[in-house]
């Protein structure tokens, strides 16, 4: 299976472990992810905040690099939503579409962004690879692990492939890996990353609410689908503890790292040692014998 692929800036930075684990499991599943040529930043929440047309151009520039009628796989929730959004925005606002298409045409850029189907990597595993094939690759079921499925906002809102408030895709995948998937009310409650740098107190409170429930549920780890959520929940636990007098120490891993562990791939190839909250204790709960 071959897919156009948009990694996004984080996967070349703070989410190096996401990149490593994606590469490792895709090799195992014989999936080829081909990075689109010279992709640019999706604009995140910043471009939309200053100029919504800039946000649409940034996304469209990436989409037109794909062949018409093809699919583009995105690993980061924020990039996914930005790229996915172009289609509905162009449909809703034909005048804006016309303006942006005209500007791109001035630079000899043709191609119709609406012809590209944007999909999240998690969606590809569920709908294209399929749980059966994933199960057939499992050598070390995660049956000793109690996991919190955390989706974040932008995987399912405002658009997406699952329920906007109580999605199940990640629950299904982790269950297929043999893990004990815990109920989690705040699975799509915002982690607050967009206001972390501008209003830290508010963001810390948002993180705390998620960690608090994860702890209350007895989760041994939080599993995420987005580098932005990962960084926020992982890197700021210290600060949350200082601010609220708590002592949370919950590892935060990518769903692709959980898949890699179940596939028997070595933790070093999954960037497992790169958590700010150490993840190594989880390895004791993975079966030794293959």
């Amino acid at each position, binding site marked *: 299976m071959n897919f156009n692929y948009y990694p996004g*800036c*984080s996967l*070349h*930075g*703070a*989410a*190096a*472990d996401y990149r490593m684990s994606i590469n490792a499991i895709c090799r195992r599943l014989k999936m080829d992810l081909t990075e689109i040529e*010279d*992709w*640019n*930043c999706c*604009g995140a*929440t*910043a471009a*939309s*905040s*200053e*100029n*919504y*047309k*800039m946000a649409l*151009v*940034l996304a469209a*520039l990436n989409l037109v690099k794909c062949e018409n009628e093809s699919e583009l796989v995105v690993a980061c929730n924020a990039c996914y939503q930005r790229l996915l959004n172009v289609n509905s*925005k162009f449909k*809703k*606002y034909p005048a804006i579409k016309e*303006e*942006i298409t005209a*500007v*791109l045409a*001035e*630079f000899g*850029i043709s191609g119709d962004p609406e012809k590209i189907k944007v999909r999240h990597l998690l969606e590809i595993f569920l709908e294209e690879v399929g749980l059966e094939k994933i199960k057939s690759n499992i050598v070390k079921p995660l049956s000793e692990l109690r996991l919190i499925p955390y989706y974040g*906002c*932008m995987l399912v*809102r*405002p658009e997406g492939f699952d329920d*906007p*408030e109580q999605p199940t895709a990640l629950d299904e995948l982790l269950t297929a890996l043999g893990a004990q998937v815990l109920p989690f009310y705040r699975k799509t*409650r*915002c982690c*607050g*990353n*967009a*206001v972390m*740098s*501008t*209003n830290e*107190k*508010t*963001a810390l409170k*948002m993180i705390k609410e998620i960690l608090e429930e994860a702890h209350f549920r007895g989760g041994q780890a939080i599993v995420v689908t987005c580098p932005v959520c990962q960084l926020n929940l992982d*890197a700021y636990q*210290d600060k949350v503890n200082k601010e609220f007098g708590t002592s949370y120490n919950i590892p935060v891993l990518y769903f692709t790292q959980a898949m890699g562990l179940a596939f028997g791939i070595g933790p070093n190839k999954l960037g497992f*040692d*790169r*958590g*700010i909250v150490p993840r190594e204790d989880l390895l004791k709960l993975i079966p030794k014998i293959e």
Partner: protein
Amino acid sequence: MEGMPVIKERNLHPQFYRRVKMLPGGEKIEACIQCGTCSGSCPSSHTMDYTPRKLIAMIRAGMEEEVLKSKAIWMCASCYSCKARCPRGIAITDLMYTLKNIAMASGCGHKLAGPVFYGTFNRMVEKEGRINEGKFIVTFTLKTDPFKIIGMAPLGMKMLAKRRLPLKATAIKNKEEFRKILARIREAGI
């Protein structure tokens, strides 16, 4: 949190309401029933001077300056809970973006952390085509609160030690054309 501002009728700007209605997220605000589902769903409304529900009422009243100078619009974390739940189908998150767009274009509240944050991010995207997270956060912090850098150092060191903070710059190849396209779009305004 503050109550609705009380101002003289001559200081209201009905044209502001008309303008917002023409922009993304503003189309349906006439249909708002002021139920407050948006404010109740919002994870940061407790820190806002005016909640999303109040902002909509203020836009409809024509309170241009009060809306554009509010801190609330910069507190939106873009989680889309309000948009998912609004019983009148108002795209409130898009409306918040539109208010930020107008505020940034008019220089309103340009000294607040929000606009500086987004502006710094966007200038880096325009320059390099991609974002280097470490470089961005340092640039932003130096602009707003240089002493905060010291407090950020421990986390920065951890990120470095975990090999999650690449020092080499990341950039696209075709920068020249990319910059021209973005300049052309910004010229067009919102």
